[in-house]
């Protein structure tokens, strides 16, 4: 192995790749333009929709209640909802989104409620329709307040202290600093993005530097040079890692800049509803995620090199690499599921472990034991992949497969 030779090969592959349109698109254009546009765009769209949903005064129907003016009045008085006249097809109207919810009162509600025998009040809504869901919550809050007030007045009438209804007070207090709240929500997505990008960034160069060379007939040319095959494959490997990391770095910085620019808008949109909301990320967390991505990027680069080295043509390499995309996306998605947590077993699963520890890092936690375990295990997997790529490159049956 000669560092000088690896460097010569690396520099040439770098120049060569930077002149390849496909590599440039996957390395620069997609991460710089597409990802921020997608994520910021979706964020803005989501926030706007949420605001619209919350700004609307939903139409609610009361079914029954002709004999119970007291509760009907309490509902009508509330300005968060708008009561519309009763019709028989109220369920269809909810389905058709003409009204958002309906309150079904049992007959003789007011009178029965005074005896605490009123039975059940139903709130009809449409699950899956966010506006209907929000309305259901609002209506339920109104009815709950009404029930408490009614209970208080009944107890007062009987001369019992209303304090019995609330033996203690309840309040909540958030101790997480704003950037860590961000870590659990949006921030938890960042490691996932970076992993996907580290993979896609390595994809095209890996195929181009191996199967592409075979297809163009330059493989035989390069094998006539005195540089050892190990040096050749390592030079190529470093080029692929460079592309992988460059893609991830560029995407992260470009996403960061876009979010900073869009921050005020998103903040304004979201904090209208929730004044405690602050949109922010911990830069140290992002940096830590990056360090954890390093061995993963090496693993991606080396295994894609090995796989596409086996292919005879670019096209064949693509058929091998495409299924690998699912292999990468799947563990990353599993990690986003609630309940999947970091433990000694998940810490040994490549990709999954990095997404999980990335989530923790973004939330400002540093489980050092797991960090060491994951970094070490990822390094082991990465070295196995490099070993496989080097071994394959030294086998003439692979290089001259026909």
């Amino acid at each position: 192995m000669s560092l000088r030779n690896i460097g010569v090969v690396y520099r040439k592959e770098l120049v060569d790749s930077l002149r390849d349109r496909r590599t440039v698109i996957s390395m620069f254009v997609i991460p710089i333009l597409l990802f921020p546009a997608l994520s910021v765009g979706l964020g803005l769209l989501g926030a706007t929709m949420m605001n619209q949903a919350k700004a609307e005064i939903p139409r609610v129907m009361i079914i029954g209640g002709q004999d119970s003016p007291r509760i009907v009045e309490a509902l009508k008085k509330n300005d968060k909802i708008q009561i519309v006249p009763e019709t028989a097809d109220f369920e269809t109207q909810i389905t058709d989104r003409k009204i958002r919810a309906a309150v079904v009162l049992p007959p003789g509600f007011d009178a029965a409620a005074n005896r605490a025998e009123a039975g059940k009040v139903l709130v009809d809504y449409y699950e899956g329709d966010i506006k209907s869901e929000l309305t259901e919550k609002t209506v339920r809050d109104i009815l709950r307040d009404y029930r408490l007030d009614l209970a208080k007045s009944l107890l007062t009438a009987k001369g019992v202290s209303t304090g019995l209804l609330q033996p203690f007070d309840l309040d909540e207090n958030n101790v997480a600093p704003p950037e860590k709240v961000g870590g659990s929500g949006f921030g938890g997505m960042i490691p996932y993005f970076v992993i996907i990008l580290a993979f896609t960034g390595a994809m095209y160069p890996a195929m181009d530097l191996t199967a592409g060379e075979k297809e163009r007939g330059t493989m035989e040319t390069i094998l006539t040079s005195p540089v050892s095959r190990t040096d050749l494959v390592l030079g190529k490997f470093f080029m692929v890692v460079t592309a992988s990391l460059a893609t991830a770095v560029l995407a992260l910085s470009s996403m960061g800049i876009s979010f900073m620019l869009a921050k005020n808008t998103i903040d304004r949109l979201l904090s209208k509803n929730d004044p405690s909301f602050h949109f922010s990320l911990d830069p140290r967390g992002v940096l830590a995620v990056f360090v954890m991505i390093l061995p993963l990027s090496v693993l991606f680069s080396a295994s894609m090199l090995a796989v596409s080295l086996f292919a005879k043509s670019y096209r064949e390499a693509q058929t091998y690499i495409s299924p690998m995309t699912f292999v990468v996306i799947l563990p990353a998605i599993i990690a986003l599921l609630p309940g999947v947590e970091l433990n000694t077993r998940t810490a040994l699963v490549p990709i999954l472990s990095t997404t999980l520890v990335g989530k923790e890092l973004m939330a400002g936690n540093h489980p050092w034991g797991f960090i060491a375990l994951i970094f070490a295990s990822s390094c082991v997997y990465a070295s196995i992949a490099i070993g496989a790529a080097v071994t394959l490159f030294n086998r003439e049956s692979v290089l001259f497969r026909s």
Partner: protein
Amino acid sequence: MIEALKLSKVFPATKKTKEVRAVNAISFYCQPGEIYGLLGANGAGKTTTLRMLATILEPTSGTAKVAGYDIVDQPEKVRANVGFLSTATALYGRLTAKELVEYFGRLHGMDGEALHKSVDGLFAALDMNSFRDRRCEKLSTGMKQKVSIARTLVHDPQVMVFDEPTVGLDVMAARAIAQFIRECRERGKTVIFSTHVMSEATKLCDRIGIIHGGNILEEGTLEELRARHGKQDLEDIFVEAVGEES
């Protein structure tokens, strides 16, 4: 100097194909200042033999000494002293002519002044300066060929290996290659080349080996072959040699 000693190559059986004995214990030699021609039909074992000499493939058994080094024990030393040219050895399309030749110079351990001198000399000698900064993918076939020649010569190898270098070339380009092969001999290099074109072998080779089915059936100067077979035309000699065997 090239000296092949019972050189064999067997491609193991795969699911689809049977075991193939591409080269069967062949021995021959070629001295500096000499052109040795491997004459054979397609599939005779020419390319496999030359690839083994250039250490792109490893022999199954036997060995060869090329420029004083053993192809099995010191393949990297062998490659450092061999220039290998074939129609299969393509150029990197996205590099310019100059970048490509420099790259191969660097792979041969050259740097700085020595590299520049060698590259500049080659570009002048081959009249390539008009397209030195043009990308290889944009070059004509003739220009590409010159770049390939410069690529094989950048490290001034003692031994030149040409694998069917004129296949697919037009008359002028093929003549240029033939001229280049002669120049290599004049500069005292050891030259081996393979072809299935009789006229090419007649014109260029000092000695000819007729290869068929992985075996060298006949060997000698053109005059020796003519005397042995009592025929003038190399094609007739070739058919007789091959026909006797099969």
